[in-house]
């Protein structure tokens, strides 16, 4: 009997380890010949721990499973948590899993599993295409930076490939600090060879021989999985000199962050790898020309690198066939917070925000009315239900005064106090500001104080004017997105939820 239990940190957080142990124990007691495989997570987190049993028809799911369910699962009972064929669960069936094709299916640390499920086909094709051909493929896929800025990935690759330097670097930004996001974590814990393959393709395409994966210290399981996978890849000569007999050399190193949110900003991240304070650099020069240790550096988000193997293996067009407008391909949307069906939903761009949170997410976990959705992390706007018709697309979100960011959606029910959330945004900015530019360093602290005065109803109208002014200063006067985007949550809260800032409704202002 073959049974699958995820080893993803979110599954472990809700008891997957105990369930796996119980399954082994019960099997031993009953003399069942059990093969227990620890997989990645499907990303259907409300069902975790999600135990899957192999049958001739496919995998049957049970979740959320507890220790007490172990016997029933092995007996074919456990009717109360039986989910039928996992592939038929609507949340999963409705997705287009390109990047997360192996999620929940394979053993993350098994290179054999990875290869059996299409792994390293992308690198093989990239090596046969050569550098210029690979860069061209990435360009034609329409892939845009999945970290938040949405810059065309192919153009970045081209710039690094054309930069003349004996030493170039590939850097993966795995400093996934945005609340409501966990897709990078799922890639690193659940499919680490995918990231290694994506970065290796980048190295081969641009002539870079060294790569760094900068992972936040808050992800101990992701760090361990990446380090183990890198060691395996090195052993199997998929990293190091002469990869797959191509003459291409590329090696990877994991670097661990130290609890600074701002290091998710690419230039601060580079400073951090160099062993400095994580302070933002002024651009230009862009990292593609002068990045890590002053050398041409391709720095991309984890999800951008993770999209690459599919694009190379299946062709740019297969990827670009998904999406809308200038947002091509799929986005692994992460639905989180106060949500009934929270998890990872990879889909082509163009689905509406309302479909994502109400239809797919199923509304709030508490069952109370859904009042606000924060899209794009701590620096993203709060969307009220009246904007749920907004299509999930870089341009449409920008037009609505928000951002797609790294794909996180955090739901809040009607008990949320939006003035408090606005205050938190300023407070978080003050806590995490690197201190290099004045609007962010000082403005965030002043912003917290101003919101405190508004909440305490001291000169409310005047202080709201001050807050709007301050947000303008932050938005246009900050060096990076931390100071520059903190106004998004603050202003959207103030604009769409004025009742939380005082009795007098405010006129709607275009942010």
């Amino acid at each position, binding site marked *: 009997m073959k049974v699958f239990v995820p080893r993803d940190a979110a599954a472990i957080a809700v008891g997957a380890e105990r369930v796996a142990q119980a399954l082994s124990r019960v099997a031993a007691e009953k003399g069942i010949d059990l093969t227990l495989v620890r997989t990645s997570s499907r990303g259907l987190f409300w069902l975790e721990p999600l135990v899957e049993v192999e049958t001739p028809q496919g995998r049957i799911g049970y979740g959320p499973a507890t220790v007490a369910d172990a016997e029933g699962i092995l007996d074919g009972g456990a009717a109360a948590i039986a989910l039928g064929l996992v592939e038929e669960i609507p949340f999963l069936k409705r997705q287009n899993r390109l990047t997360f094709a192996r999620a929940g299916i394979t053993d993350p640390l098994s290179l054999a599993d990875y290869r059996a499920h299409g792994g390293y086909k992308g690198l093989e094709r990239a090596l046969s295409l050569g550098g210029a051909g690979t860069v061209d493929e990435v360009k034609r896929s329409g892939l845009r930076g999945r970290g938040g800025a949405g810059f065309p990935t192919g153009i970045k690759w081209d710039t690094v490939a054309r930069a003349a330097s004996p030493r170039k670097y590939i850097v993966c930004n795995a400093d996934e600090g945005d609340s409501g*996001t966990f897709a990078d974590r799922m890639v690193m814990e659940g499919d680490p060879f995918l990231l290694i393959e994506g970065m290796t393709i980048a190295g081969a395409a641009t002539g870079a021989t*060294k790569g760094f994966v900068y992972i936040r210290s808050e992800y101990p399981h*992701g760090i361990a999985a990446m380090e183990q996978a890198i060691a395996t890849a090195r052993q199997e000569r998929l990293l190091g000199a002469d990869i797959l007999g191509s003459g291409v050399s590329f090696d990877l190193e994991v670097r661990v962050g130290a609890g600074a949110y701002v290091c998710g900003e690419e230039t601060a991240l580079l400073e951090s790898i160099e*062993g400095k304070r994580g302070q933002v650099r002024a651009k230009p020069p862009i990292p593609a020309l002068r990045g890590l240790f002053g050398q041409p550096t391709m720095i991309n988000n984890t999800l951008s690198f993770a999209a690459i193997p599919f694009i190379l293996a299946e062709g740019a067009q297969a990827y670009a066939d998904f999406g809308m407008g200038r947002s091509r391909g799929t986005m692994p949307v*992460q639905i989180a917070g106060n949500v009934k069906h929270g998890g990872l939903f990879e889909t082509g761009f163009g689905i509406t925000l309302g479909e994502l949170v109400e239809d797919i997410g199923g509304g709030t976990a508490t069952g109370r009315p859904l009042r606000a959705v924060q899209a794009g992390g701590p620096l993203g706007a709060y969307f009220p239900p009246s904007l749920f018709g907004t299509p999930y697309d870089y341009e449409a979100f920008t037009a609505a005064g928000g951002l797609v960011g790294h794909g996180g959606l955090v739901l809040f029910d009607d008990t949320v106090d939006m003035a408090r959330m606005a205050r938190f945004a300023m407070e978080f900015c003050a806590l995490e500001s690197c201190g290099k530019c004045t609007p962010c360093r000082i403005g965030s602290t002043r912003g917290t104080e101003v919101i405190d005065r508004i909440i305490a109803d001291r000169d409310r109208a005047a202080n709201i004017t001050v807050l709007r002014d301050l947000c303008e200063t932050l938005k246009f006067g900050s060096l990076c997105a931390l100071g520059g985007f903190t106004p998004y949550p603050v202003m959207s809260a103030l604009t769409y939820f004025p009742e939380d800032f005082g009795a007098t409704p405010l006129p709607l202002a275009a942010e």
Partner: protein
Amino acid sequence: MHAYRAWDPARAEEIMGPLLALEGPLLPILHALQGEFGHVPEAAVPMVAARLNLTRAEVHGVVSFYHDFRAAPAGRHVLRVCQAEACQSMGATRQFADLLAQLGLDAGGTTPDGRLTVEPIYCLGLCATAPAALLDGEPHGRLDAGRLSELAAAA
């Protein structure tokens, strides 16, 4: 739970040795020192500075910039409770405040017996199983007030 070693300059040199060849060795060195001694002692700063040909001010600047590096060892157990937005949406702010009140601690404080340090953390990537916390590096999700207190008590 970790048993940390008392500050030992010879041991610190040993730890630094193999890391000096890395590109940008400072953060890996600081992490390694903290892993051994539970904090980055003041006495380590001039030593690291000398080995990396940096000024003491530069090293101190880095140590003090990052939230992770401690000036003194934490308690024997560390409970890091997520306070970011997704966990807030499930009541994490209140739970954290109540836990601190129960234990008579401020955020980041350690119980008088040195058993437990409780501190906020901003996002563990467990946002669809919120509220979440990390106890000695192990993740816990779908917490409520009762389960959070149990974690604090069990540590």
